């Protein structure tokens, strides 16, 4: 038997290891920026709605940086082998999407569309999940990002009461339930998306409790 077969295979594995390292580094970089952006955006929980503009502004630089880092990562990947390595950055992309979605909600009180994501992060969202010929953000990553918004919304409902903004929970509640009815359209299988979808109802409940507290005390006028 020819041992050369195995030597060749080993060479190829070693070569791929290099690419793995590069991807890992790029993802680590992306995470770093995401954490900074997250730190900046989370200030939105401690200010009244009138000041969220500045909060969103303060994270602008990080979003530009994220776009840059994602573009660097994308250059390492050939579209045809995209899914070979996809797992390595998928989590980071979910985080990046959730930050972009949160930021757009803060500034415009609406759900960021895939087009918005493309604008902020610089890569197309593969909405129809077709075979790809370029680097993309997957529709699952986008949806994970949207699910993360529910957590932020429930915190925001609580925190807006703290900063004495008792009208805002109503808006948040309406928006959250609209968004939830969107998610209820999906036929999810037993995967990560499904598990996280199942947790949305707790966020909705929290938001409703805030509403209840305000109403029962006659604070909503």
């Amino acid at each position, binding site marked *: *038997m*020819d*041992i050369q*077969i*195995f*030597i060749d*295979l*080993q060479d*190829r*594995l*070693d070569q*791929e*290891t290099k690419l793995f390292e590069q991807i890992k580094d790029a993802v680590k970089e992306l995470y770093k920026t995401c954490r900074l952006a997250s730190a900046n955006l989370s200030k939105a929980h401690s200010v009244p709605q009138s000041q969220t503009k500045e909060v969103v502004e303060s994270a602008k630089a990080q979003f530009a940086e994220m776009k840059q880092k994602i573009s660097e990562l994308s250059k390492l990947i050939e*579209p*045809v*082998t*995209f*899914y*070979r390595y*996809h797992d390595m950055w998928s989590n980071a992309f979910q985080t990046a999407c959730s930050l972009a979605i949160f930021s757009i909600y803060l500034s415009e009180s*609406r*759900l960021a*569309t895939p087009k918005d994501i493309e604008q902020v992060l610089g890569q197309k969202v593969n*909405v*129809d*999940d077709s*075979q*790809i*010929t370029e680097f993309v953000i997957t*529709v*699952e990553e986008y*949806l994970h990002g949207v699910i993360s918004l529910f957590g932020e919304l429930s915190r925001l409902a609580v925190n807006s009461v703290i900063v004495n903004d008792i009208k805002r929970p109503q808006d948040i509640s309406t*928006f959250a339930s*609209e*968004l939830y*009815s*969107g*998610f*209820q*359209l*999906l*036929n*999810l*299988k037993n995967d990560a998306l499904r598990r996280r979808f199942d947790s949305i109802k707790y966020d909705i409940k929290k938001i409703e409790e805030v509403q209840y507290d305000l109403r029962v005390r006659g604070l909503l006028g």
Partner: protein
Amino acid sequence: MSDQETAKHTKKPRFNKQAPQPSIAPTENMSESKKSIIQQFTLYRDTLDAHYDQRERVIKASRDITALSKKMVFSLLRITQDPPSRVFKEVEDKNTMVLAIFSRLAQDIQGSDAFKYNSNSTHGLQEYIEALGLWVFLRDNMLITKGQVEEMLASSGVKILVTDNDYILGISDLPGEVNRYCINAIGKGDRGAVENSLVFLRALKEGIHLLVSSGRIRDLNKKLEVLESSLEKTERAYYSMSIRESEMKAVNESKGVMAVD
């Protein structure tokens, strides 16, 4: 408008009882924001459904390929009892059936989808590589190459990606079958077959050992352990065969001496 809407929704197919689709469609009393959310998510639903269906088809094909490949292996192992020509003919027929499944599978794993669904298709492919590997070993006394696997798949007229992982994990399952073949061969006293198996297993062990050290392929460690135990079993079996043979020789010789006396 609302009449049309309700008409559309009451016309649900009757068999659809167990999985009612939440039938929210944009209606006029919906707010603009809700309308746009519903519209978007309807699109995502279709996208995800298509993806889940495709994955399901790949899993099914992979399962069918696994089952048929196992049958190929069993046919091949009968080579110690049946005439090789008949065995190879039988395997040839089964192989044609597997290739037909592969050509069905191929539609779902083209382009970037090849890697996307690799984790769903790899099991069947590995099992097939194992069967082909045993075939090539019995026919040519050689280790099948990745090129040979690809060529065989291409002969069905479709393009199917074989990754290094698929290939390595496929051939690392070979020792178990070679060991089985070898034990049968010992039963028949086929020294040549045992000799060949041993050489093959030893070389395979060295090769796989080389790849384990790269640490990149999951599960390969476990497979190497199985390989080593197969090798040991084969060596022990060969050892007892050799002992028995020399014993017999000694007995025969002493008989021969007695006869002369």
